[in-house]
């Protein structure tokens, strides 16, 4: 059985680590009838244990840093991390703020960055699809 299993069956878990709710609303928008990500097999799940991809929104506040690390460790392998929004990618307007532990990639390894403030649902879907490609890559390496 290969990792191409993720191609049409991807369960994502949404981790808000201190976002303004803008990106979170756009993630919800991707589930609505207009975008309907379920038709690609992408499903929002309620626990990191069921997740294949973590969608992290917002720059990481100090209290959330430890939680984010734990959520990442709780997610079963193979997994990918998609950062949604400018704040999570670079800290955005909260750059070097006193209560910010840093952008997401300073806390956990990140696979895909989706910039935007807030990002559009199309961009989120594109980011998740790129994450699938990342999930499948280790197997491709083994084959060659």
């Amino acid at each position, binding site marked *: 059985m290969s990792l191409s299993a*993720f191609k049409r069956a991807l369960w994502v878990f949404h981790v808000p680590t201190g976002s303004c709710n803008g990106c979170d609303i756009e993630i919800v928008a991707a589930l609505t009838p207009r975008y*309907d990500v379920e*038709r690609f097999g992408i499903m929002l799940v309620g626990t990191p244990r069921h997740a294949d991809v973590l969608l992290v929104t917002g720059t990481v506040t100090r209290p959330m840093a430890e939680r984010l690390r734990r959520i990442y460790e709780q997610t079963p392998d*193979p997994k990918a991390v998609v950062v949604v929004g400018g704040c999570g990618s670079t800290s955005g307007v909260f750059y070097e703020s006193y209560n910010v532990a840093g952008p997401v990639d300073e806390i956990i390894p990140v696979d895909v960055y989706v910039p935007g403030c807030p990002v559009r649902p199309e961009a989120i879907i594109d980011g998740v699809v790129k994450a699938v490609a990342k999930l499948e890559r280790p197997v491709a390496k083994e084959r060659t």
Partner: protein
Amino acid sequence: MIVQMIWQSAAVVLGGLLLGLVYKGLDRKLAARMQGRIGPPLRQPFLDVRKLMVKENVVPRDAVPWLFHAAPILALVAAATVLLYLPLGGLAPVLTGRGDLILVLYLLAVPAVAMALGGFAAGTPFSAVGAQREIVMMMSYEFPLAVVVVGIVWRTATLGHSPAFSLAVVSGTPLWSLVGPLGVLGLALLLLCLLVVTPAELSKIPFDIPEAETEIAGGLLVEYSGVNLALFYLADALKTVAMGALVVALFIPYGLAGVFGLEGLVAGIVDVAFFLVKVFAVVFASVTVVRVAMARLKVDQVARGFWIPITTAALAGLVLLILDKAVVG
């Protein structure tokens, strides 16, 4: 004989799994269409299971490992065993025995108990809350379910069909045409109660309080991942078929082959196909439509709802059947 039975059992369980996953796919597709979405492809549940098989199987630090691993297997085996006792269209059940209907009732409770056990064994607050809710749900819906079954069995027995509590006898005598008008009313009430119990038995919206993704993050499945989660997923698929088949066996055990005067292999195929349609109709009416139209109930609403209105309705159905016996004989 034994070898043949093993082959038959394997065929029924595999067929049930396939069918359960197809029904799950249909359910998701139709629910999406009702919400104005395109929805996942029909084979989505198969893809989900395949993906779960690849994932890491995490056991939490505070879990009781043997119980944590045993629970999904227990759930799957119990759900598969129920299917072996149920008549599937024109096919006779693989296993039969004295009072097999009572056994089916108990076996239907086992997957829920297994899920609760797994939830407690995971040793985390969300799963413990989910497990407690599952137990509360079971205590609520088991009584109306038992009343429905007892009502049907009692009326069948009073019409001179024995032995009582035999699924073969109950599904061999469709009561609708044998009872008077009061009896038909009673049967309709019992059918309604059973259709309300079905989504609760399957933990679907509005009775998905043990899982409740948005409030307790997946409830009793919260710590499950990988193969164990896939086993629960398959157990759920099998249980869907089993519940549908139980409703069909109790209330609509009609075949088409007799109507068209078919015989032999053709009759078997027609009856099995008609059976699949009936099971689908039951699942569609009591799971898909309800879950799209309603939101999740609170646990106290479910407990009160089953204990007072649904139990009353079921008992009223039973009383109507008793009156029918007094009038019609």
